[in-house]
């Protein structure tokens, strides 16, 4: 599998550069329209009042945080399976954006929780798994930065990302189980059972916008990673092959 090892990152660099403006433009458009509908057009929710508008950023951020983690793990898995450096670079580029969305999901979740449940934080299954997800993003990034050898850093953080993918659903269901057991506040983030079409439109537009934004940012970051890695000193000037002296 030599096809992707040296050529791919350098061939991908200009391609990514061409795609970034398009994704950025689509992202800006979708987010602008989504904000317009969500903040200006959509009516107040009769149960929750206007605090429900937080879901227009909260839900997309939470979805992106989980989605990006899975995508990161897939790239890492592909990288290990095919020994492809570009895959690891993609995984490396995804982590910070995913972590940021996780953080935003937690923050906006607290903002939504305070007026809705009267508490900044509840040990709800979704919030808890989101918190653990943040720790896992941090772990993957920390492990990468603590290992000096790039190849090893790629692979070790890849293994961790893959292990984490198994962990998140287990945590989700375990906390859910735990909550029902304690019979505490049976809370759910999707408190609105039948969301009006207009609200749903705004939320889907925002999600689409966040998604496009993520692609643009990740492509831009992977370009930085390619630059940083490929411009290391002594890259690509192989020393002479060793001489073999037969039966001296």
């Amino acid at each position: 599998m030599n096809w992707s090892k040296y050529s791919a990152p350098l061939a991908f660099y200009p391609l990514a550069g061409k795609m970034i403006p398009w994704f950025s433009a689509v992202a800006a458009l979708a987010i602008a329209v989504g904000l317009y509908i969500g903040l200006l057009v959509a009516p107040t929710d009769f149960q929750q009042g206007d605090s429900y508008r937080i879901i227009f950023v909260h839900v997309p951020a939470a979805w992106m945080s989980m989605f990006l983690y899975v995508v990161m793990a897939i790239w890492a898995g592909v990288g290990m399976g095919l020994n492809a450096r570009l895959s690891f670079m993609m995984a490396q580029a995804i982590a910070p954006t995913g972590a940021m969305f996780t953080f935003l999901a937690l923050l906006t979740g607290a903002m939504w929780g305070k007026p809705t449940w009267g508490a900044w934080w509840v040990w709800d299954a979704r919030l808890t798994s989101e918190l653990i997800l943040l720790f896992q993003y941090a772990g993957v990034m920390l492990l990468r930065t603590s290992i000096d050898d790039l190849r090893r850093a790629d692979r070790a953080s890849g293994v961790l990302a893959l292990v984490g993918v198994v962990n998140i659903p287990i945590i989700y269901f375990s906390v859910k189980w735990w909550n029902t057991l304690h019979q505490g506040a049976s809370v759910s983030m999707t408190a609105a059972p039948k969301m009006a079409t207009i609200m749903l439109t705004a939320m889907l537009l925002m999600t689409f916008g966040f998604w496009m934004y993520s692609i643009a940012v990740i492509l831009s970051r992977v370009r930085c990673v390619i630059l940083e890695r490929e411009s290391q000193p002594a890259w690509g000037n192989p020393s002479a092959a060793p001489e073999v002296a037969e039966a001296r």
Partner: protein
Amino acid sequence: MNRPSLWEALRGVVRRDLLLAMRRRSDVVMSVFFLVIVASLFPLGVGPEPAVLRTIGAGVLWVAALLACLLSLGRVFTADYLDGVLEQMVLIAQPLPVLVVGKVFAHWIVSGLPVVLLSPLLGLQFGLDGEALGVLVLSLLLGTPTLSMIGAIGAALVLGVRGSGLLVALLVLPLYVPVLIFGAGAVTSSMAGIGGEANLSLLGACLVLSLFFSPWATAAALRIALE
């Protein structure tokens, strides 16, 4: 062909680690001592009301067991990595994941089993009574091997990395959450009269799952660390 049988290799790995643990008994004593101290500090911090202690008891003991396991993780592979025994183990002509199970089993005998055996005594400190004590021991018996299995992944990932002691905690603790929930949950639900069976069977499921997956991940991490 000079090839050990799988059973021979597995037994050899366990035997060497247990022999080494016998030579360095102070390590084992220290992590047990740590557990006792942590468990004893909580009543001093929370206050001596028996009702409060009984409600937090299971959680505190489980967290203490988790921390004791975490502290001992450095012993699983680090010394072997530094003196070259690990690379010899990787070169044994048998599947590495199976040998990893041997290493983890030896680690559990040395660090997990003492916790299980000591837990009824510590449970008494928190006013846990007969049935709850039994469930506590059973939950630790099912849970601590899982902790060792999962912890081995982290221990293998951070081999030779600077600041590995703190890093392994950051990597492994998020993965310990389900075990903690089910383990402590088993005791609290049995005290609440619901019975701990559901939680215990979930703990068992976690153990089976970790027995299946963690040796592969650990073996992959070991090969990566040795490159």
